[in-house]
């Protein structure tokens, strides 16, 4: 619970959390916010923003606002889904390698290092191209299965550090089973690293999904921020000047990315207190304020003394 407390006390984290929360809420409650169906033609093509269509319409006459809301459902689900897969794999592989060591560590570590040096985006593109027009779920799956290596490496090195601590050795001497030591003794000490890795993975997954779909590797019938951009590009909305269709998905992607990044920055500060520059500053301000107050108090007593 202390972790969540720290998160809400940090201004950057709170701000990031609000942004991300806002977009999650509006996409979950999309049907209550807009009356239009994102997949149906509801008006003429390329209508500029108006009262009826807050963010205008696409070339196909679809409501951009509705598409952005419903697209958020899929895009955010893919982001968080892929993030969960990445973190689950990273934690499982990282802890196993770090805790058991020896041959297991050797094999898993070289697997991580190989995954790290094979370029991700091209690999994903090749995978997606061979599978064919990939649905959002498959995108989440392939992003998850190819991007765990970095997290696993971080978890592994942290596990190595924790494993040497006395409380772990004590648990081993007491004869606790390995699974219990891993889950009860080691895992809680990795929470901040896992949190940072999860947020990073979600950012990466949302960006990558948008990129893959923008390039035309996704399923064009699904409504996501990426396919919105793909259709925007295909109908040359940029060259017509249909700014509403160009900027709606882009602003949303940028905002969600920014929110998550702020959250990550804060998690970094929590994990590494040295980086928390303003905390020290706050203390310094407190101390100077205290000194000033003391000086003022002394002055008044001195004055009082002089007066009496």
């Amino acid at each position: 619970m202390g972790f969540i407390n720290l998160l809400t006390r940090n201004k950057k984290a709170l701000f990031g959390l609000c942004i991300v929360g806002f977009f999650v809420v509006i996409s979950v409650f999309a049907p209550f916010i807009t009356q239009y169906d994102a997949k149906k033609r509801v008006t003429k093509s390329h209508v500029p923003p108006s009262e009826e269509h807050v963010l205008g319409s696409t070339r196909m006459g679809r409501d951009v606002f509705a598409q952005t809301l419903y697209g958020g459902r899929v895009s955010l689900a893919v982001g968080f889904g892929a993030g969960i897969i990445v973190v689950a794999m990273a934690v499982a592989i990282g802890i196993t390698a770090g805790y058991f060591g020896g041959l297991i560590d050797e094999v898993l570590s070289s697997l991580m290092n190989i995954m790290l040096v094979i370029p991700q985006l091209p690999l994903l593109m090749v995978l997606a191209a061979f599978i064919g027009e990939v649905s959002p779920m498959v995108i989440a799956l392939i992003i998850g299965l190819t991007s765990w290596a970095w997290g696993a490496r971080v978890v592994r090195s942290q596990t190595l550090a924790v494993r040497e601590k006395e409380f772990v050795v004590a648990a081993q001497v007491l004869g606790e089973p390995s699974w219990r030591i891993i889950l009860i003794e080691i895992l809680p000490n990795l929470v901040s690293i896992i949190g940072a890795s999860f947020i990073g993975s979600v950012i990466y997954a949302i960006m990558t999904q948008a990129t893959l779909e923008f390039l035309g590797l996704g399923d064009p019938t699904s409504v996501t921020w990426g396919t919105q951009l793909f259709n925007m590009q295909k109908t040359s909305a940029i060259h017509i000047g249909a700014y509403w269709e160009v900027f709606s998905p882009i602003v949303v992607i940028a905002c969600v990315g920014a929110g998550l990044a702020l959250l990550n920055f804060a998690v970094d500060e929590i994990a590494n207190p040295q980086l928390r520059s303003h905390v020290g500053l706050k203390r310094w301000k407190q101390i100077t304020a205290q000194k000033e107050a003391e000086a003022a108090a002394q002055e008044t007593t001195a004055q009082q003394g002089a007066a009496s």
Partner: protein
Amino acid sequence: MGFILRRLVFYFGAFLVAVVINFFLPRMMPGDPVDAMLAQGARFTAEQIANLRLTFGVDQPLYQQFFTYLGDVFTLELGHSTFFSNMPVSEVLANAFGWTLFLTGTATILAFMFGATLGIVAAWYRGGKFDSIASPLSLVLQATPQLVFGIVVLFSLGVTWDLIPISYAYDPELTPDFTSWEFLKNVLLHAVGPIFCIFIVQLGGFLVPMRNNMINLLNEDYITMGKAKGLSNIRVMLNYGARNAILPSVTALSMALGFVVGGALVVEVIFNYQGLGSVLFNAIVNRDYQLIQGQLLIMTVFMLAFNFLADVLYVFLDPRLRKGGK
């Protein structure tokens, strides 16, 4: 020396893994690889189909196919492109390679220079105004996809204000001539947009780690010692702090250069720039499988080469590793 040799063996292993992926991926699809390509909407002439079946050697046992493929890879026989009128894949890639290298290489080196410098300043004045704006901002920039910057720059500077060209690496009317100033000016003008987009995304990637390394170092005793000796702030900041904090950043630069080939993909597609990214994009749209596979290989090789360079640089820059002490 042992360290470098071990890394070399590792990178060779990683390369083989990429080759294996490239080999098995098309063969894991239902039917034979040629059928899979046809089912995906690839357009071939009857002659090309016959040729493809021959290249894939679908009648031979799998291990034999694998060794044939391995031999082809090492002799750069990557097959023929169907989209680029049957040109050899290696030739298509070689033509596009220079443009991508120019674009991303320039952007990456600029991002390193600016990012590292600003990171040093942010760390020195940590908690100050510059630090509390620049550091979160660069993190946000880093989390924004190239896709976003590419489209925003193209829409604003390219289409709305018409300041930069929106397509190609140089005007198609011009004949490429790298000695004429006119032509070079044209190339530079076309590169401004894409380079800016790649630069701005990478900036944070250099600024934030530099800042964090530097902050950790500034608490060390020798920094206090330097200040106590009465050295100027600049001297302590650069010779005492930055000299040591920059180590990880230099290797990060080398690794970032490894991404050079794959890194500009989206920006190239948005600006219709004729580098490797556009080639890959066209290959995918037209289901030009051998070209796609060739791309993955060349990007992997580049990545491995620069990772290796990073290792070598590390040994060179960090005296502790050079002496081979543990």
